[in-house]
């Protein structure tokens, strides 16, 4: 069969969010992948500059639905560092608790999505049924099933009572039993192993070269984890293992994520046992003094980096969010080399993509053109767009005619 180019995305049943992968095929073998990003760009970084720090907590939280606490915590850690606030230890433990519960939620969701991508809907239904347990716990603790809004400048908003702690421990026991069952299925179900082993291969050297983070990188034996390399919140006092695997393919990523679920249960139990008494927040000024800070957080998908620059007012001057999927997406082309078309959904799903997190502004300096930047006002930008498309062959009269309303 001749070479064909097939578009996976921006709209495709395999993708939960829009992103464009143009795949060049030779029969069923992939020879080339061309990616276009930016379909989920919402201008959050610019919007953050027009809102106060308190309002920004909620804006940054909504960068992503599943790693909302990660983004919110990373942001608030930057701001607290600039302001020199000493967050109470109890608040740090509570942030870890919510963060680990979020990791459990995210990995169970991923297990279901991976099952769906390989046609194993039963795994999807069962793992998402178990995910309800953790969502109910989060609703009880924070007031909502996603977007927990736990963070505030200087600590957390809500406390955990004794009874809630007992409920969490019961839920963790149930979930641990179910996770052991999923590990059993993942290691013994032939069709699953056949489907997941092999595709998405990326060697350890390539992981270091492309800067792959999170479980995707840990599945190739690179044991990088921001919770161990650059501990934040209460992690310096907690004991856990970084789960790595040597398969280097999608199956390895599955094993790493299920292993991380078990580690998270361990962490949650430790947190509830060692939870110190004390305040849950310190009073924070509304105006943050001038300064800048970078903060890293281990989101369920990998290392999440935030940068905040403050200028003494109650609004930040610049906020930059680098989500883990941004680092992993660039390795997808390498992973898809020499694979089959049938593997594209599962390889993309195996990096646990969150395109809402990824699509931020990226500044590219072209080596051949030198640095340049222009700034447009809205009307001029629209005119420039129309000019560019007309010069490139788009006929606007034809488009305008098609949108005529037949009366």
């Amino acid at each position, binding site marked *: 069969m001749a070479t064909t180019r097939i578009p996976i995305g921006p709209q495709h049943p395999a993708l939960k969010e829009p992103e464009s992968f143009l795949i060049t095929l030779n029969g069923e073998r992939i020879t080339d992948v061309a990616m276009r990003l930016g379909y989920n760009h919402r201008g959050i970084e610019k919007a953050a500059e027009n*809102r*106060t720090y*308190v*309002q*920004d*907590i*909620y*804006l940054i939280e*909504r960068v992503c639905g599943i790693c909302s606490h990660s983004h919110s915590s990373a942001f608030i850690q930057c701001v607290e560092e600039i302001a020199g606030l000493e967050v109470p230890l109890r608040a740090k433990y509570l942030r870890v608790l919510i963060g680990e519960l979020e990791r459990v939620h995210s990995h169970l969701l991923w297990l279901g999505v991976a099952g769906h991508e390989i046609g194993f809907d*039963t*795994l999807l239904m*069962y793992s998402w*049924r178990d995910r*309800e347990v953790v969502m*109910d716990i989060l*609703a*009880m603790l924070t*007031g*909502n099933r996603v*977007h927990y*809004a736990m963070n*505030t400048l200087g600590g957390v*908003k*809500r406390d955990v009572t004794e009874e809630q702690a007992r409920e969490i421990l019961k839920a963790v026991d149930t979930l641990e039993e179910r996770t052991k*069952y999923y590990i*059993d*299925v993942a*290691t*013994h*179900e*032939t*069709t699953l*192993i056949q489907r997941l082993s092999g595709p998405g291969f990326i060697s350890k050297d390539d992981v270091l070269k492309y800067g792959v983070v999170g479980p995707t990188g840990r599945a190739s034996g690179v044991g990088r984890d921001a919770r161990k390399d650059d501990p934040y919140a209460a992690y310096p006092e907690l004991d856990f293992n970084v789960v790595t695997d040597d398969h280097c393919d999608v199956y390895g990523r599955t094993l790493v994520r299920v292993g991380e679920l078990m580690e998270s249960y361990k962490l949650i139990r430790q947190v509830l046992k060692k939870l110190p008494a004390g305040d849950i927040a310190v009073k924070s000024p509304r105006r943050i003094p001038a300064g800048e800070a970078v903060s890293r957080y281990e989101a369920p998908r990998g290392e999440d980096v935030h940068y905040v620059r403050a200028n003494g007012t109650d609004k930040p001057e610049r906020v930059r969010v680098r989500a883990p999927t941004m680092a992993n997406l660039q390795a997808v082309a390498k992973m898809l080399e020499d694979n089959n078309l049938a593997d594209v959904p599962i390889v993309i799903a195996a990096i646990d993509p969150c395109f809402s997190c990824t699509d931020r502004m990226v500044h590219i300096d072209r080596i051949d053109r030198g640095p340049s930047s222009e700034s447009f006002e809205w009307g001029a930008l629209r005119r420039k767009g129309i000019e560019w498309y007309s010069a490139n062959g788009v006929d606007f009269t034809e488009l305008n005619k098609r949108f005529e309303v037949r009366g």
Partner: protein
Amino acid sequence: MSFPGKMAAQVIGGGLFHKPATLMYPAEKATMPLGFRGKLSFWPERCVFCKLCMKDCPSEAIQINKLGEKRYEAIVNLGRCLFCGQCVQSCNKDALEMTTNYELAVGQSGSLTVNIGRDQAEGGFEAVCEDEDLPAPERAAAAAKAAQ
């Protein structure tokens, strides 16, 4: 040792002969725990008109109007409200509270702007005004007229 059909025991024992995990909404409803961040609720007698809630709201969803001497009302645009609870935290007089009501869908977007006062009719779903984009002074006048 791997074999196909590992989940057979689970699906037959744990799936087929178990009550389905589906909630037959709206016949069965999920009740949210106390502390759930649902629709806002306002205690007019506690409000001192400091407007900190309006200042801290990330989406400008809440509006406190002065109806008269020490009489206030709170109008919330449920379409804009993030249900984040920042206004509840910012209020120093505990005049705002979040209920567990999550069934907030309406048929027209004008009905999304509601009066959340506890002295209002049950549920408070009556729209204050049809046009949610009326500027604030006109809205306050319309509300004052409705309250008489």
